[in-house]
């Protein structure tokens, strides 16, 4: 009979060999802001992480620069970087950004939601239909609520099927995509609008929805608003970081807090500055479009939800290790179903912005491949398809990259065939980036939330 003592020791040794390599591999993986005591250490940590494949936002920024340079050179008359086109680029990106923030709820769980393009489109079409003066003439707040409610209910049904019946989200939401696509076309046909309910006409409700994208803020007001936002955010970062430093908690060095605040200020000045240049051809046209504060509001709300609430923490825990979450007493099906509802809800906002951009809803809406743009945007921004890692900010950064590509193709008047091919390649590139960065790090995804 085998000696169990010996057997136990042998397994111990094998296990020891297996784990021995882990600590070294792990060093490079530490987020520099967690261990750095000074700016120098931070930079070294950051470089080490990039070498290890954990590169944060750097590739996004580099991709952005490359895209901008290429399109500026090849766009007709170099219009790519003109104020008018840049504002247009922000507007087009906004839809993708919000849709990518929606998709983040599914991706953090390690799931995917392919339906949100057309689910959101249904919601937006409902809103646009309900405010038509010729038919129902609802006030816009009610109509928006009705549209978003549709999205939430659709998300709840899909989420329930996925979590209670343990069906794969890929298939359920693919089915949902087809159903929503059909419903969308049905909704368009209501009323005397020949399938194109739009936002032109004399009605405050129509104007309001149209203004989501095309309304602008007075330049003076926008500068004051930007200053207030930067001051509030900067103050928050500075005071919470320095309080943590004082009480000996893990906190970035003061210089890093300052750099962060400086970066936010620069972004604010550049964006507001560009928007406040005159972009009109014959008449003066300037000001920050409403959509920018709308995107910032969604970003702020979902960043707080995911980063600072129990719900957000549970979402990441489930994405990282569902069994650990279950044993911690977390109700998995409730959290996961709610994630699909939040996902569809946010998509409702995104497609409402799209309706505003298009001045109405028609069967030209390419909601199907906007979903793919959204997934690509989230992944390019740093969200993992394998779950457990992702932030709303990733959707915004990646959305800008995708928007930049989309806008460039639009300027070059690329044919549909080429747009499809480019979309596919971009999605593929995003997934490759995700896979490579995961292989670089020792084990799975690492994030500091």
């Amino acid at each position, binding site marked *: *009979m085998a*000696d*169990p*003592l010996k057997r*136990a*020791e042998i*397994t*111990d040794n094998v*296990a*020891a*060999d*297996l*784990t*021995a390599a*882990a*600590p070294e591999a*792990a*060093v490079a*993986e*530490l*987020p520099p802001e*967690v*261990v750095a005591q000074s700016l120098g250490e931070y930079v070294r940590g950051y470089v080490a992480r990039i070498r290890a494949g954990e590169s944060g936002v750097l590739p996004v920024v580099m991709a952005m620069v490359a895209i901008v340079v290429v399109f500026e050179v090849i766009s007709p008359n170099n219009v790519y970087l003109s104020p008018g086109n840049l504002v247009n680029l922000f507007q087009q990106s906004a839809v993708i950004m919000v849709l990518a923030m929606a998709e983040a709820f599914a991706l953090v769980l390690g799931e995917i939601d392919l339906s949100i393009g057309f689910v959101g489109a249904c919601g937006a079409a409902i809103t646009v239909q309900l405010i038509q003066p010729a038919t129902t003439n609802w006030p816009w707040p009610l109509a928006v609520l009705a549209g978003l409610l549709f999205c939430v209910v659709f998300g709840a049904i899909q989420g329930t099927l996925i979590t209670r019946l343990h069906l794969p989200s890929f298939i359920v939401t693919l089915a949902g995509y087809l159903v929503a696509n059909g419903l969308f076309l049905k909704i368009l046909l209501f009323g005397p609008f020949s399938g194109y309910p739009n936002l032109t006409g004399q009605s405050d409700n129509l104007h309001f929805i149209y203004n989501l994208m095309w309304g602008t803020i007075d330049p003076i007001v926008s500068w004051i608003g930007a200053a207030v936002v930067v001051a509030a955010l900067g103050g928050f970062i500075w005071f919470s970081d320095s*309080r*943590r430093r004082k*009480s000996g*908690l*893990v906190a970035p060095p003061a210089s890093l807090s300052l750099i962060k605040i400086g970066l936010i200020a620069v972004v604010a000045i550049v964006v507001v500055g560009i928007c406040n240049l005159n972009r009109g051809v014959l008449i003066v046209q300037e000001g920050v479009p409403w959509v920018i504060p709308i995107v910032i509001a969604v970003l702020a709300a979902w960043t*707080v939800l995911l980063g*600072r*609430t*129990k719900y957000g*923490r549970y979402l*990441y*825990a489930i*994405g*990282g*290790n569902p*069994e*650990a*979450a279950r*044993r*911690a*007493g*977390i109700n998995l099906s409730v959290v996961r179903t709610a994630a699909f509802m939040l996902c569809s809800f946010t998509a409702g906002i995104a497609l409402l912005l799209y309706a505003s951009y298009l001045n109405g809803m028609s069967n030209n809406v390419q909601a199907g491949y906007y979903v793919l743009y959204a997934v690509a945007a989230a992944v390019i921004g740093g969200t993992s398809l394998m779950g*457990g*890692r992702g932030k709303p900010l990733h959707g915004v950064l990646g959305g800008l990259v995708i928007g930049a590509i989309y806008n460039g193709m639009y300027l070059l008047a690329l044919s549909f065939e080429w747009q499809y091919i480019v979309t596919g390649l971009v999605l593929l590139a995003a997934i490759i980036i995700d896979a490579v960065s995961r292989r670089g*790090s*020792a*084990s*799975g*995804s*690492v*994030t*500091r*939330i």
Partner: protein
Amino acid sequence: MLKIRGLDKHFGPVQALYHVDLDIPPRQVTALCGDNGAGKTVLTKCIAGIYSIDHGEIFWEGRPVHIHNARDSARLGIETVYQDLALADNLDIVQNMFLGRERLRSGLLDEDSMERSAAETLSSLRVTTVKSIRQPVASLSGGQRQSVAVAKAVMWNSKLVLMDEPTAALGVVQTRMVLDLIGRLRDKGLAVMVISHNLNDVFEVADNIAVLYLGRMAVQDKATNFDRQSVVEYMTTGGLGRSSGRPAKEG
């Protein structure tokens, strides 16, 4: 502290535990030994409330109790460190230690207070090798992960900590670290039940030894009444071959 009498547990046709009796005294380390498949993990999960028991009684501090889920056992002061640890790799040490029991301040997570408490617990256990308690668990070594799982278990005024094979996946240095940690839990006044089939570890930390054999409790006694040979024999034969007979402890 914890007394189990006549515990039965089956999964379909498989009888995993038969009439198991077990006593876990306070302020001592009880080692639960047994070959693979003896039912050690099942017994742990019954105590932790993951599995419901078919028959039998559990007494906690002298009173009969019914443990239906993990929250029940946590309420009594029983915390479990599972074999697979159940840590979320993507979360940091503090986030893992507070998972499911986060502290809030005006509706939002109170990270500062959680980080302070986690740091206190870790340093009271002298877990000092981690670089930062804000590093993700994915970046920790096996021993460090085990330490985090243990620290997570002792943070909640727990009175009894169950540990399922805490050293099975560890190398020599890391095993040392975990054994020291178990000693420190006892010094803090906690009762510990540790599952292991590494007899070096068992004899090093255990005050009492219980041996499961094919779902039955073969023997339970003071560690000083055993030697290596006798434990191995109980593990492999259930003690049938022994003539002198240290009878399986009753009552």
